[in-house]
C-alpha cells in the first residue's frame, strides 16, 4: 500500500458526468458486440456449421420452406450468415484481444528494457527488431504455422510474436526520452529500483502513444487472422471467424454481396469503436487532461 494509498482517485461520479455522448455510443456498440458474441450459443437462430445446400447464397430476409428465417441470408454452402457472424465474433474478438495482449507485453517489455539498460542489450534487441520488421509479417506467420501447425492458440502466439517489434520501437523511443528526465533521476536518488522506476514512472508516461498502437493493431489483428485463415493457416473450417467468412464471401461478392458486407460492417464498427475508445482512454489516463 504505502505510496499507493495516497494515489487514491477522486470519486468516480465526477468522471462519469464529463463523458461525451460519442463515448457513450461507442461504449454501447462495444458492449453490444461483446454481449452478442458471448450469448451466441443461445441467440443464434441456427447451427453455424450446418449446411443446407438447397439454400445456397440466399439474400437477407429469405424465408425457408421449413419456416426458418435467414435474416442476413446464407453463404455459399447454405449456412445461416447471422449465426456464423455471431459465432465468428467470438473467435475474432478472442484472437484480436489475446494476440494484441501478447505482442504488447513482449514488445513493451523489450523496448523499455533496451532503452533502460542500453549497451549490448539495446543493440541486441533493437537489431532484432530491425530484422523482424524487414521480414514480411505474413511470410513469418506462414513459416511459423508451417512449423507449429494450425490452431487457435498457435494462431495467437504467431500473431503476438510477429507483431511485437512495432511496440518495441515506440516503447524504446519513448523510454529513452523519459529516462533522462529529472523526475526519473529523482526516483533513482530516492532509492527506487529499476523495476519500480520502469513500472511506476516510465510506463504510465509512455502509455499514451502505446495505446494508439494497441487500438490500431487490434483491428489489424482481425484482418491478419482473416488472411491466415484464408490461407488455411488460421482457424480451420468449418469453424467461423469474421475473417474467414469475408475471405470466402469475396469470391461471391458479385452474386452475394451480403456475405462480405455484414461481417465487414461489424468489423468496421468494432475497429472504429476501439479506436475512439482508445483515444478517450489515453486522455483519461493523463492527469493533465482531467477535470481541474
Amino acid at each position: 500500500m504505502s505510496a499507493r494509498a495516497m494515489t487514491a482517485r477522486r470519486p468516480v461520479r465526477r468522471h462519469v458526468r464529463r463523458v461525451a455522448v460519442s463515448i457513450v455510443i461507442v461504449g454501447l456498440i462495444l458492449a453490444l458486440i461483446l454481449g452478442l458474441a458471448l450469448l451466441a450459443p443461445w441467440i443464434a437462430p441456427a447451427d453455424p456449421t450446418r449446411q443446407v445446400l438447397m439454400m445456397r447464397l440466399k439474400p437477407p430476409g429469405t424465408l425457408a420452406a421449413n419456416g426458418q428465417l435467414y435474416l442476413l441470408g446464407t453463404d455459399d454452402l447454405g449456412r445461416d450468415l447471422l449465426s456464423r457472424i455471431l459465432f465468428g465474433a467470438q473467435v475474432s474478438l478472442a484472437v484480436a484481444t489475446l494476440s494484441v495482449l501478447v505482442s504488447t507485453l513482449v514488445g513493451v517489455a523489450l523496448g523499455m528494457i533496451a532503452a533502460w539498460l542500453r549497451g549490448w542489450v539495446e543493440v541486441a534487441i533493437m537489431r532484432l527488431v530491425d530484422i523482424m520488421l524487414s521480414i514480411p509479417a505474413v511470410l513469418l506467420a506462414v513459416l511459423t504455422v508451417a512449423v507449429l501447425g494450425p490452431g487457435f492458440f498457435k494462431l495467437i502466439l504467431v500473431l503476438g510474436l510477429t507483431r511485437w517489434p512495432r511496440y518495441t520501437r515506440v516503447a524504446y523511443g519513448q523510454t529513452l526520452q523519459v529516462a533522462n528526465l529529472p523526475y526519473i533521476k529523482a526516483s533513482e536518488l530516492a532509492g527506487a529500483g529499476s523495476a519500480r522506476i520502469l513500472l511506476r514512472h516510465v510506463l504510465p508516461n509512455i502509455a499514451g502513444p502505446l495505446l494508439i498502437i494497441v487500438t490500431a493493431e487490434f483491428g489489424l489483428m482481425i484482418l491478419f487472422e482473416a488472411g491466415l485463415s484464408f490461407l488455411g493457416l488460421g482457424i480451420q473450417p468449418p469453424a467461423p471467424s469474421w475473417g474467414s467468412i469475408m475471405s470466402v464471401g469475396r469470391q461471391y461478392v458479385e452474386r452475394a454481396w451480403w456475405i462480405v458486407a455484414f461481417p465487414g460492417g461489424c468489423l468496421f464498427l468494432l475497429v472504429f469503436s476501439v479506436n475512439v475508445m482508445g483515444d478517450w482512454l489515453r486522455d483519461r489516463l493523463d492527469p493533465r487532461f482531467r477535470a481541474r
Partner: protein
Amino acid sequence: MTDLDAVLEVRDVAVHFAARGGLFGGTPAPVKAVDGIDLTIGAGETLGLVGESGCGKSTLSNAIVGLVPPTSGSIRVRGHEVAGASRAALHALRRNVQMIFQDPVLSLDPRSTVGAAIAEPLAVRGVARGRVLKDKVDALLAQVGLEAEHAGRYPHQFSGGQRQRIVIARALALEPALVVCDEPVSALDVSVRAQILNLLVDLQRRMGVSYLFVSHDLAVVRHIADRVAVMYLGRIVEQAPRDVFFAATKHPYARALMSAVPEADPVAQRAKRRTILSGELPSPSNAPPGCAFHTRCPLATDVCSRERPRLTPRPDGALVACHHA
C-alpha cells in the same frame, strides 16, 4: 586529510566522457567535463558553485550524488566513499545526499500525485508506511509551506514555485546531510525566487542540512552562500568565503563574472569598468595547455600557457589559481 566535520569532501575528482570513435578509427580525446576538483562542505554550510554553462557544474553535481561515476578521485559524503561504490552502498549513501533540479516541471512525474512523489523515498526504503507515512508526508508539506490536502493533487495543478517546494519536500524527506541544488531558482519567476531561497535558508537553520548550491547567478549566490567557488572548464579557479569573495575578487575570470552583474544604481552602473571576455569557452575535450583560461585572459603572459597555476591560499582566506592575480 579526512576532516571529520565535513559533510562532503571532494578530492581531485575528474569526470571524463569517452567520445565515440569515428568510423575510420582514431579515438578522439575524451571530454574532460570535470578535471581535478577539491571541495569541502561543512555541516550546515552552503557552498555556492558558480560558472558559465558548460564548465562542468552539473557534471560535478551528478558525480556527487552518484548519478555519474567519476573517472578518478574521491568523493566522500560523511566519510563514506561515493566513487566506485557498489549499488547497495550507493543506495545507503543516498539517504545522505539528495538533489534539487533546475526545472520544477520536469522534476515531478506528471502521472503520480504530489503525496506519492514525496512518499516515494520513505516508502521505498521502508522508513514509514500507512498512517505514519501519510503523517510524515503531511508534515513535509507543511514544512515547505503547503497544505496536507495538496497531497492528492497532481503536479500540473501547481505553479512553478509550488512545484519547487514539493521537490524540496521530497529531497528533505530522508533528512539528508547534503542537498545538491542544481540551479534551483533559475527556472522560476523573479518574484518567487526570493521565497524559495528563503525557504532553503530557513530549512537549513532548522535541519542543519548542507547545500552545494550550483548557480550562474552571482546575486543569488551572494544571498545564500557561505563560501563561493568559481569553476572554469572543469576546474576551480577561485574559492573564498562569501564576504571576501564579493569584497575583493581576485581571479581574472571571477572578476569578469563579477563585472557582468548589473548594478541597481545607474550612476554606479555607468561608472563600472566592465571586463568583457573575448572568444568562446574552449572545448573541454581540447583544453588549452597551462592555465585553461589563458586564451581569454587579459593578464595572460607566456608562463600561463606553459604552467598550470595551482590553487594557492591568499592572506584573506581566498584560494586562487592564477600566476598574476
